[in-house]
């Protein structure tokens, strides 16, 4: 029994059915490999029909059905994971930019407080609250942003860069815990947690910045992490004064905004794929 194109009818029917079933795969995969999969299936169909007749075809369909179900699920899961990863890196880039802006805003609001140098002054409560809220929200976004930086760039940063980003994330988390503790207690521990966390976050970012410069982990602006980190370390080096504070905040924020911009711009251009 032959089909209209000279191909045995069971083979022709099987191939048509298989092509129809290929619709179960994600569109991009189907567009790239669907034709070749159908071609391979046609070849195997012909071979198995010639050697085994209808029982051979039945056996082939049993194997192919299992293969189809398993790989369809695999491809959809892989596509979903890939999309989620991309989205996380992209959104954490925005988070880092938002965190940098809030951090700068918190610092500016704190500096506007006319009573900031008066230990018993009470008139600047709104400035203080504004500064704390800005810093706290900024720190939350830093944690998310740095997690995304680690998720998107750890592999190409090598073991040192990856470890530095972990230190940075832990530091950001510790600093956030310190800020939150400040809201409920005036304990010295809260200030220590905030300061130690900030130093750890900055040092981690500085090491990652060196790695970024050496390995070119971003497509451009690889100086940005180091710009952010080094300027925040300036006050720790003993330099003081209004200008140091202003330059530090501005450069730190600009550095992180540039890093965040690169993250959201580069997410999804080409995924990191494992075999």
């Amino acid at each position: 029994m032959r089909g209209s194109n000279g191909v045995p009818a069971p083979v022709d029917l099987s191939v048509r059915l298989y092509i129809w079933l290929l619709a179960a795969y994600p569109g991009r995969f189907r567009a790239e490999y669907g034709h070749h999969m159908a071609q391979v299936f046609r070849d195997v169909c012909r071979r198995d029909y010639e050697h085994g007749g209808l029982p051979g075809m039945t056996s082939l369909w049993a194997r192919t059905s299992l293969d189809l179900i398993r790989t369809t699920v695999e491809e959809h899961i892989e596509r979903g994971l890939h999309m989620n990863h991309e989205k996380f890196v992209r959104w954490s880039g925005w988070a880092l930019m938002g965190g940098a802006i809030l951090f700068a805003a918190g610092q500016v609001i704190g500096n506007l407080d006319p009573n900031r140098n008066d230990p018993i002054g009470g008139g600047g409560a709104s400035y203080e609250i504004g500064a704390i809220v800005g810093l706290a929200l900024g720190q939350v976004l830093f944690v998310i942003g740095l997690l995304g930086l680690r998720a998107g760039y750890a592999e190409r940063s090598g073991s040192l860069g990856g470890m530095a980003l972990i230190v940075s994330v832990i530091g950001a988390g510790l600093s956030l815990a310190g800020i939150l503790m400040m809201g409920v207690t005036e304990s010295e521990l809260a200030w220590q947690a905030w300061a130690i966390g900030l130093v750890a976050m900055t040092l981690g970012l500085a090491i990652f910045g060196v790695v970024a410069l050496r390995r070119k982990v971003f497509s451009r602006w690889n100086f940005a992490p180091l710009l952010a980190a080094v300027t925040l370390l300036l006050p720790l080096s003993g330099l003081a004064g209004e200008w140091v504070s202003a330059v530090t905040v501005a450069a730190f924020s600009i550095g992180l905004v540039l890093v965040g911009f690169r993250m959201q711009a580069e997410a999804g251009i080409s995924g990191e794929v494992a075999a």
Partner: protein
Amino acid sequence: MAEVARVPDSFLPLTPAVFHILLALADGEKHGYAVMQEVEEMTEGKVQMGPGTLYGSIKRMLAAGLIEESDDRPDPTLDDERRRYYRQTGLGHKVLREETERMAELMALARRKHVLAGIGSRSILT
């Protein structure tokens, strides 16, 4: 994001499908159906990959730089021009060699533990 240069070790252990595809391509470039046939012949029919497994693996191997598409056609007159031919890359070759060494070390360990003693004598008897 830019492609990451990975060391061969980071791919190990390979999935059976990836290992067999690399092995099938060890002696030259092949198209998908030829890879499938070669794998079936090498394993005496024990490993039969479906088109989904074959091309899912090929997709990941291309992305990881283990194989690449070839523009050359062994004999264009005998073949469908639309078939894609694949060949190992240098990285793919190194990964296959390291995986084979890893399996050989496991085999040696199993031999030292006499894991194969019963199996060996049975195969000699049969």
